């Protein structure tokens, strides 16, 4: 059995916990400028239709009394760590998905902690007592189902789907609740008259797979009560990325490149601090109308220098035709591997030496920044005092 735990309005709940004046009031955690978005809204605010990722100005329009609270990242991650520690006492298999969400494999834990319901109550009580926060728990035989279950009675609820109920639950499950079904997939599914997971059975498996590819295969499996995903306790970092919302929307390529340079340096530094190299560089651009694109490039050789990441990011950006103004820029790396894993060297060409030389420069810069502060050494183009 899999347990999925989801904290209720995590950031907002912490702010309300720490400031009694905020309790019972519609609050939103996020930046104060009109360009920021809501990162979490309290349940009081949600009644006004405010939700995460909504632009702040829109939220204020919906609820003029909305109290905007700036976020306190470290406070949240401290709370998160302590909650995860509680979960680890109940099962060795805990997979934190994000700061406020985790899966646990609780198979075979009943001799220690009683029935699933007793266990869920115990976990909720511990979190309530220690952190004064509430959460919602879903328990189901399959991982995806546990996540859907935790959402059924929110906030402060427990939903258990027993093994014998699982099949009926899956058959009647609204297809749009399945993680991975986005807008596009949903409209395609609806065109096929598929509204519940059970409707998948009306088509041949091959048909679904040919139409939706890998995801189709997953849908067919889920419809047959199979979920290959397991609770992975050992968290392996798959990517490192950083993004920033610009102070104003722009199409100026020079400015975008500058932002990319600073993002690349930050990503590169994190990568090097983790003693890793990457073989994939990607960029993300969000436009003024909130549509977004991502572009990825696979490298021949793994790299870790900021310069190499920046060069790839710019190359990816140059292949994008800008039709709209850019609102947000992100740069990231994936296909990470340990730097000590031997890397195949090139027989011809000298691209490698150049990468290696930049890595040495970065190493020196990183050391200076570690010792004297991260704002001390930077690329000349990023220094406002020498800009015209």
């Amino acid at each position: 059995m899999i347990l999925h735990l989801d904290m209720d309005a995590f950031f907002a709940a912490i702010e309300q916990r720490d400031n009694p004046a905020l309790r019972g009031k519609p609050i939103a955690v996020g930046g104060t400028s009109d360009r920021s978005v809501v990162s979490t809204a309290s349940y009081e605010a949600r009644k006004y239709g405010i939700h995460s990722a909504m632009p702040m100005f829109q939220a204020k329009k919906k609820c003029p009394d909305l109290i905007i609270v700036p976020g306190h990242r470290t406070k949240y991650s401290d709370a998160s760590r302590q909650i995860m520690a509680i979960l680890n006492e109940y099962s060795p298999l805990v997979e934190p998905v994000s700061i406020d969400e985790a899966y646990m494999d609780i198979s075979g834990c009943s001799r220690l902690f009683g029935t699933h319901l007793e266990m869920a109550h115990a976990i909720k009580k511990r979190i309530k007592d220690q952190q004064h926060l509430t959460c919602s728990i879903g328990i189901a035989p399959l991982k995806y189902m546990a996540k859907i279950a935790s959402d059924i009675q929110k906030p402060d609820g427990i939903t258990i789907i027993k093994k014998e109920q699982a099949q009926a639950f899956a058959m009647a499950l609204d297809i749009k609740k399945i993680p991975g079904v986005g807008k596009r997939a949903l409209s395609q599914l609806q065109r096929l008259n598929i509204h519940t997971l059970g409707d998948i059975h009306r088509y041949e498996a091959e048909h679904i797979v040919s139409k939706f590819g890998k995801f189709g295969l997953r849908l067919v499996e889920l419809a047959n009560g199979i979920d290959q995903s397991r609770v992975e306790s050992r968290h392996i970092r798959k990517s490192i990325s950083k993004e920033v919302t610009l102070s104003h929307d722009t199409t100026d390529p020079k400015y975008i490149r500058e932002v990319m340079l600073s993002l690349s340096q930050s990503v590169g530094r994190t990568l090097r601090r983790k003693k890793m190299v990457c073989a994939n560089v990607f960029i993300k651009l969000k436009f003024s109308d909130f549509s977004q694109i991502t572009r990825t490039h696979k490298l021949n050789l793994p790299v870790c220098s900021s310069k190499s990441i920046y060069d790839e990011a710019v190359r990816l950006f140059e292949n994008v035709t800008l039709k709209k103004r850019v609102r947000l820029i992100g740069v990231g790396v994936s296909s990470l591997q340990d730097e000590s894993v031997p890397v195949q060297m090139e027989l011809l060409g000298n691209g490698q030496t150049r990468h290696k030389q930049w890595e040495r420069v970065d190493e020196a810069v990183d050391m200076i920044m570690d010792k004297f502060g991260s704002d001390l050494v930077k690329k000349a183009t990023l220094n406002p005092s020498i800009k015209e």
Partner: protein
Amino acid sequence: MKFSFDKKKMTDVLARIQGLTSRKTNLSITSDILVHATGNSISITANDLETVFHGTYDAHVESEGILSIHSRKFFEIIKEYPDEDVLINEVENRWVEIGKGDSLFHIVSSDYENFPETPQITDVPFVEIKAAELKKMVDVSSVVGFSGEEKRIYVLGSLLEKVEREECLFLRIVSTDSRRLHCYDAPYEGDLVLPNESIIIPKKGLSELGKFISLNDDTLKIGIKDNHFIVQKENESMMIKLLEGEYPDYKPVINFESMVPIEMDKTLFSTVLKRVSILTSEDYKSVIFNFNENELLVTITNPEIGESKEKVMIGYTGEEVKTAFNPKYFVDALGVIDKENISMYIKDSKSPCIIKPYDNDQLICVIMAMHIS
């Protein structure tokens, strides 16, 4: 048009060109073959816009004509046809009837006017080369492949040039994926004319050429003209369009003069490599070679699976050298060396390793090391 031919002979021909016609191109008609019936023979053409196959075969032609028909479907029908003699008849409006009597197919063909034109190249200055040698050139080079996203011309194609060694002329093929390089010198007869000092042949075309060369052939004619590499048999020919681009200077890479030679037994080395390769995975491909006095220690550590160790006695007297390699490249190289005794040349942990047959320099395989940090 109406003609009939021998099923077995035609199946062999069609089987060899399936690779060519199954390649995706910008034109859908390249998955067709062009069949031309004249006199008492038929000719078959396949063209993927880079490589062209053309062959002429005996047939019983009742009425002449041309048709463009889907290569794979045509091949499958002929292959499975119950009789030894197959009748092809264009009935009307591009509908083609295959067979007669109890087993009959009705296939729609394409407009042959749309079939890409075959380049007309005449007066090719041909030279003769042993079929086995040409096959070897193809085998040595095509084991060094390329990935789908590859854009570098020198990885997409193999270099071909004339070299003189010990007062003999050879045709040299060089193939690399930028991590390893294979080089093979084949003897030939005649006066070879190259438009430039060297030319680059696409590896895709070379792999089709591999199927074109049959072990029954003794010698083949090869020539280069009008930007094509042409191989000619009695009744068949293949033309491969050359690639244009720069090829890096590979000669320093195959020079082993300043390196330390080690004599080895191919079979022994090969089995050791196969055993250590068991523990490689997508993320951990490297095997550490530790050369010590009269001993080679091969180790692999894969944190996902485990580790292994192999000790081999070798005649080595130099300094200790520790270097890492992808064993697959060695397995590939040993696969194209026919001799039992091989020479291995090493230098240091940052240099490539060279392996070649002990007693000649006809084949040289260079493998770049992996960086150990």
